[in-house]
């Protein structure tokens, strides 16, 4: 999937895209990249967002297990990328977008954690809302090119999702970005804000876990 040569890029390829560094630069009053888009640039950004929005939504759904939260996370990432980073070279958009997306996902998870801690004891609280939420796989419409193949795909996805939900957060990120979204190691490292070595470790562990979980059901 990834050409061997991709490894030589390393983090240096995306060294300048650290959103945290950019935020600090903005705060310090230095030149900002909040430039208005011309029509051609806007079209390019539109195409990029259209190419990632559905996959990003699914990835957010894996992490958050809630449809509305997944929409919020994707919308936040789109807005932030468009407002603050659209002037950056387009090849940086994908790792940047996913970095913003995962930051948003962690924020939402933190908020839910706090809410659960403080209000979870209340009767009728939404402490177990995640468990009560409808399975997103069940929301997939039956209509498709071929009902039997669609059913097979749905079942495979349901198994995969169950296995993914048992992964630690960082392993889930590494697996989602590397395998499902198809980012190379350097881009995944940039998106996760860690070293390439960490990406490889998280990814390898995720694969090992998934192999154990899915070996029987996918054979």
């Amino acid at each position, binding site marked *: *999937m*990834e050409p*061997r040569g991709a490894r030589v890029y390393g983090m240096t390829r995306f060294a300048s895209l650290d959103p945290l560094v950019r935020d600090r630069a903005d705060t310090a*009053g230095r030149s*900002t990249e*909040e430039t*208005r*888009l011309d029509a051609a640039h*806007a079209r390019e*950004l*539109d195409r990029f*967002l*259209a190419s990632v*929005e*559905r*996959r990003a*939504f*699914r990835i957010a759904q894996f992490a958050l297990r809630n*449809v509305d939260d997944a*929409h919020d996370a*994707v*919308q936040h990432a*789109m*807005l932030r*990328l*468009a*407002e603050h980073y*659209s002037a950056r070279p387009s090849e940086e958009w994908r790792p940047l977008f996913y970095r913003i997306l995962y930051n948003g996902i962690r924020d939402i998870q933190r908020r839910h954690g706090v809410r659960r801690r403080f209000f979870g004891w209340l009767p009728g609280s939404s402490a177990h809302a995640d468990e009560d939420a409808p399975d997103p*796989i069940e*929301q*997939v*419409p039956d209509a*498709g090119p071929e009902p039997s193949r*669609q059913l097979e*795909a*749905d079942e*495979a*996805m349901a*198994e*995969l999702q169950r296995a993914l939900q048992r992964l630690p957060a960082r392993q889930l990120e590494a*697996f989602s970005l*590397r*395998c*499902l979204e*198809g980012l190379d190691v350097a881009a995944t490292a940039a998106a996760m804000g860690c070293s390439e070595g960490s990406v490889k470790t998280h990814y390898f562990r995720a*694969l090992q876990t*998934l*192999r154990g979980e*899915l070996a029987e059901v*996918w054979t």
Partner: protein
Amino acid sequence: MNDDREPELQGLERRARDAFDASVEALDAHTRSRLNQARQRALAAATAAPGANDARRGWSAWAPAGALAAGVLVAALVLRGPVDSDRVPAVAGSHPAALSQEPLELLAAGEEFEIATSDEELEFYEWVEVAAVDAANGQG
């Protein structure tokens, strides 16, 4: 990904990717519509009228200076302490503290101020001022 990865892991990756791609393709119309709307909002924000964003940025640029000025003002008021009534310039033998409190009392009473529009009203206000000064001097 590495070509030398175990065939079993390669198969796992391929199946996971296929299942994921199929689930993405199978997203319902409502979800697609919501995502499309979110994208349009993001694009609109990025291509918003420069004036609005510049104005917002202008205000935010002045915010630190404003905060600093407010801080200096508060510090000056705190360090200066309460107003010393002896330092208020005396007006024609009147009691300065009493005069300086009049506007505050009027404000506290909630009465409406009206700007004098006629000579008659101006004369009335002059008479009130003289009467107040006389009262303060014990001549009333």
